């Protein structure tokens, strides 16, 4: 029971990380109509910048700031240099151009930092653990990640639903041409949304950096899961991204935690282990296929 609860929290923590990535990706998708495979690269940029500064100065918070600035700048450079030319293109060109961006980002990172993973520790204040239930101590840092993720979700809710910028974002997601026709500075809005998405991806990277190993290719692994979240939630819907991210985060964590052991009761050890891990990795994709069969446009899709 305690183990189950702990895994649920781990799932929640993975879920909010996915949400931080998916929120930006779904907005970029919904408003500009661009498939950005390189979103995971911005996550990597955030993680690397933060870890490097944290290792050099010993300050997690300095790293946090650097990571955010670095990913934000990288995002704006990508938008101005590449994305801007892709808005009018078809999905195929977008997939290829951003696939090329992944290669460029990954290799540049190898050139600067090498192939060795960077390891950082959690900040002093958050390094202990809190006994949230009798007999269940849980790392403070992971609770902090969950709190930050939920705070961002609430902040985004207000930004999108209660502000003028948010209104434009919503309008852009449901009818791009109309917003442009009404005389809104759509280029500025695009850059701002892309920058915001990059910032959130960077934040996810910074948050994850003490928990996962910071290495080249870390973005490629999580970006596929993020795409699954965006597609299940419905392209352009931040609410959908939130629901799907939390649900998938928990589902994926549960499978990985319990499936191999369950299989071991009916099969020999090593094979059960391998099969369990394999099926756990397939879980989210299976989920996406099932959701799309029932609702081809995702759970919370707008008219698009």
């Amino acid at each position, binding site marked *: 029971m305690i183990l189950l609860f702990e895994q649920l929290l781990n799932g929640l923590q993975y879920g909010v990380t996915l949400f931080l990535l998916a929120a930006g990706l779904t907005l970029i998708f919904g408003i500009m109509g661009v498939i950005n495979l390189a979103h995971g690269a911005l996550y990597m940029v955030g993680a690397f910048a933060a870890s490097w500064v944290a290792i050099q100065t010993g300050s997690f918070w300095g790293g946090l700031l650097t990571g955010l600035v670095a990913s934000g700048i990288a995002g704006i450079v990508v938008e101005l240099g590449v994305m801007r030319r892709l808005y009018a293109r078809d*999905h195929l060109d977008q997939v290829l151009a951003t696939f090329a961006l992944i290669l460029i980002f990954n290799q540049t990172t190898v050139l600067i930092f090498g192939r060795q993973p960077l390891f950082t520790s959690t900040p002093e204040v958050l390094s202990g653990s809190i006994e949230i239930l009798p007999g269940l101590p849980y790392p403070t840092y992971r609770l902090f990640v969950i709190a930050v993720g939920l705070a961002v979700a609430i902040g985004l809710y207000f930004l999108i639903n209660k502000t003028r910028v948010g209104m434009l974002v919503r309008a852009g997601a449901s009818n791009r041409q109309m917003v442009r026709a009404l005389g809104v500075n759509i280029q500025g809005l695009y850059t701002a949304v892309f920058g915001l998405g990059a910032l959130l991806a960077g934040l996810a990277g910074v948050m994850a950096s003490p928990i996962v190993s910071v290495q080249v290719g870390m973005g490629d692994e999580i970006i596929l899961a993020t795409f699954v979240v965006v597609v299940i939630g419905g392209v352009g819907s931040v609410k959908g991204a939130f629901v799907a991210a939390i649900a998938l985060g928990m589902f994926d964590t549960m499978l990985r935690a319990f499936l191999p052991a369950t299989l071991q009761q009916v099969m020999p050890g090593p094979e059960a282990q391998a099969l369990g891990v394999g099926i756990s*990795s397939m879980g989210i994709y299976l989920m996406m*296929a099932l959701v799309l069969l029932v609702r*081809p446009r995702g759970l919370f899709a707008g008219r698009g």
Partner: protein
Amino acid sequence: MKRENLLLLVVFILLALVPFAAELTGQSSWIKLVGQALIYGMAAASLNFILGYGGMVSFGHAAFFGIGGYVVGMLYHHFDAGTLFLGFIPGTDQMLITLPAAIVAAGLAAALVGALSLRTGGVQFIMITLAFAQMFFFLFISLKTYGGEDGIMVRRTNSLPGLNMKDKATLYWVVLGFAAAYYLFLRRLVQSSFGQIIAGIRQNERRMAAMGISTYRYKLYAFILSGMGAGLAGALMVNFLRFASPDMMHWSRSGELMVMVILGGVGTLAGPFIGAGALFTLETMLARVTEHWMLPVGILLLLVVLTSKGGLMALARKIMGGTK
């Protein structure tokens, strides 16, 4: 003889001479390089049929390539161990059996994936094909019997009656023969009424439906045919490299196949082969010079996508004076 056919014949003869050239110059790695490029060209050409002619952006094509390869690997594994696949299918190392088996297996997988994926479109189609490919990828990783993450070594290339397949040059010519046959097959297919319908669906699906054509069914047939082609290419690749691994169906491989199609020219017959040759040669050459070969490849790809429409084929036509 038409100019196009003449050009094809010249290219075919030049490709057939590669083993002699390799022997003369002592560059035996040329055979391996060109052979692999030809096989990737077949895989890219099969993708191009649905992507370029049919307008279906499948991001999971490497799955069928890998399945075709694994059929060869698994049949060899059972042949070698003297065991039965699923308890009743004996293994074999006869190419006349393994290749058709690979084509059928890839076709069945494509039928399953296509039947489900084609219910969606646009971004969702791209992502659901990717999802299915990921599922196959993880499935094969979890099969410990067949090497898991490490894949299967195929110690000897499948045998073909009357030929010494151990000889590198013979194997190369077999591959070249398949590539040429596949090229001609695709040319027939594209010009057939079936191919015309597929192209019509790309241009305006609603109009084709209004003409009384069941577009879903035609798209599904095209998807299956395309998957079978990729399966054949995968089976040849495993024979050529004597190795099958889950890497064959990694999602970046699907991306690479798309890159080959775009680089060469979408919706052209020779484009995917040219694109595959260009990308594979570039990768191999750069990899010899620097371990950071992905950086120049990425920059080049970005420039091609941003600046050109139609890839290398369009560029070639421009240089040749634009006959078409």
